[in-house]
């Protein structure tokens, strides 16, 4: 276990290093800098600005200094939001995105598993067919269609929920549903397929022969095994939720990390962009690690050492 964790942490450091380097060079080597404007600013002033943000000198010098700062936990100043550090901007926006992402993850897992097992148990009935057609529809409709439609219905016509912005926890209801919708569908489809396969397995016949109740067989014995593919899907799912949150935050005007990401690219704000990318990668890699660990709990046949 310890060896496994060490190896994974080392791999994580490697991935982070590659991603940071890639981001830095892609942004710095492409034409146009953070201070390039329509109107030209005097060369002396631009030089001073570049020096202030440690963007002067050779590219290798800039890169090595940046890496050493990042290693010390300093993500530097944003070039767009002047005088504010990237650490500060992230500390402010990350909790909003995290709450949004986690509630969408929870909503998607719970309702997806519930819908999927419902469909599997009633295989071939109208419930099953309509649930699966609905799931495919939810996968096909992009979040930036469901989001505005939900706003139109629940915020503008019925006036039950706020249109956008973040004033109270209620403001997060529509964004969470929008973000979770395609994930609910994917999980429901996955659960159904996997449960249908498991329901034919010999160990369930044994359970029935022992005289266990149908509901105990389904919820305790079958579902626990059937959830394995769902658990391994949680890794890619969190990647989808992460990119999805960028769109959802834009639609609902939420001041989360995703909106900073888009702005940082448009403004060539190299350090803010670096910061956001680092946070995203750390989140994803840790999520994948958690998934692998959860896997061994659910399926005793798998050992981490392999």
């Amino acid at each position: 276990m310890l060896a496994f964790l060490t190896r994974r942490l080392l791999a994580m450091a490697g991935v982070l290093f590659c991603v940071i380097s890639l981001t830095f060079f892609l942004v710095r080597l492409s034409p146009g800098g953070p201070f390039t404007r329509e109107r030209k600013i005097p060369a002396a002033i631009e030089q001073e600005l570049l020096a202030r943000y440690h963007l002067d000198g050779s590219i290798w010098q800039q890169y090595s200094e940046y890496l050493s700062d990042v290693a010390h936990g300093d993500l530097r100043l944003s070039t767009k939001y002047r005088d504010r550090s990237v650490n500060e901007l992230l500390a402010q926006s990350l909790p909003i995105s995290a709450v949004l992402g986690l509630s969408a993850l929870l909503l998607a897992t719970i309702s997806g598993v519930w819908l999927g097992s419902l469909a599997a148990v009633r295989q071939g009935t109208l419930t099953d067919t309509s649930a699966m057609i609905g799931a495919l529809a939810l996968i096909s409709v992009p979040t930036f269609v469901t989001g505005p439609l939900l706003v139109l219905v629940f915020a503008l016509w019925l006036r039950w929920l706020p249109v956008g912005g973040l004033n109270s926890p209620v403001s997060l209801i529509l964004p969470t549903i929008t973000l979770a919708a395609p994930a609910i569908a994917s999980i429901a489809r996955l659960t159904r397929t996997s449960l249908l396969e498991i329901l034919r397995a010999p160990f369930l016949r044994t359970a029935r022969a022992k005289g266990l109740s149908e509901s105990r067989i389904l919820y305790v014995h079958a579902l626990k095994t059937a959830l394995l593919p769902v658990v391994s899907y949680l890794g890619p799912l969190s990647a989808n939720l992460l990119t999805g949150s960028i769109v959802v935050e834009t639609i609902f005007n939420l001041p989360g990390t995703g909106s900073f990401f888009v702005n940082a690219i448009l403004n060539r704000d190299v350090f803010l962009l670096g910061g956001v990318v680092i946070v995203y990668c750390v989140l994803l890699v840790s999520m994948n690690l958690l998934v692998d660990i959860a896997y061994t709990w659910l399926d005793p046949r798998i050992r981490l050492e392999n």
Partner: protein
Amino acid sequence: MAAHFSPAANRPGLWRRVLRRPAALVALVILCAILFSTLFLPFFLSADPHATSPDTFLSPNAAHPFGTDLNGRDVLARTLQGARISLLVGFSGTFVSLVIGTTLGLLAGYIGGKTDALLMRLVDILYAIPRLILIILATFALDPFLKTWLAPIQEGRWIGYTKIAILILALGCIEWLTMARIVRGQVLSLKTQPFVQAARALGQSHTRILIRHLLPNLLGIVVVYLTLTIPAVMLDESFLSFLGLGVQAPQASWGSLLSDGANAINPIRSHWWLLLFPATAMSLTLLSLNFLGDALRDALAE
């Protein structure tokens, strides 16, 4: 699993089995209708997708069946033009992913050993990082280079298309992962079969075995995942265009039209037609493709 062991792919009647499903038939009809209207309808319409007019935000009427937008442009003409770009990116991006995915999958499965382990590790790593974010970075960094490169050619008339070309390449370069995994799995089971061993015993070259014996047997499963990759690529493209990071004005794709539509939904006045028509067109296309892909996969497994 049944799909794994399937000369079924090449057995006659796959299409008949697919089209026996009513959902698949409806999906195919809708898809053909959308493709035909995208290709041919613009020739019969008088409205120019780029022509602005003083009639801004007209709701749907006889002259403009889908209404007009902020600049008085006809939304029907713009939806059709967006369809062309979205479908172009979807199909070409998928083609790029097909070439990469099939080649790497074939090689990994056939050569095996260290090559296989290396390629599959690469796939694992790419699965684990936020790929769309890398795409965004790559499009932004590469676009200026392509622009300067294309500027002297034919007085720069291709400059407006650089973003689209980069999107096709970049999306193709990330959406090949699933295809590579599936092709590899299939090759692993195929290469132990007697006809491949016989071909090897007859002294046929590796290239010939790969192209003449393995590739035709992969066709079925590749077509299935092709059908499922197209909507995925289209979704990615529209995602980038929605954020303003993909197709740039005056070009439009469904994603950028939907971004206009989403902005037009506000508490003061909602211009719902700007959202509804492109949204319906796009969702119907993606839904039909997904339905068709699912039906193909089920028919293959039968």
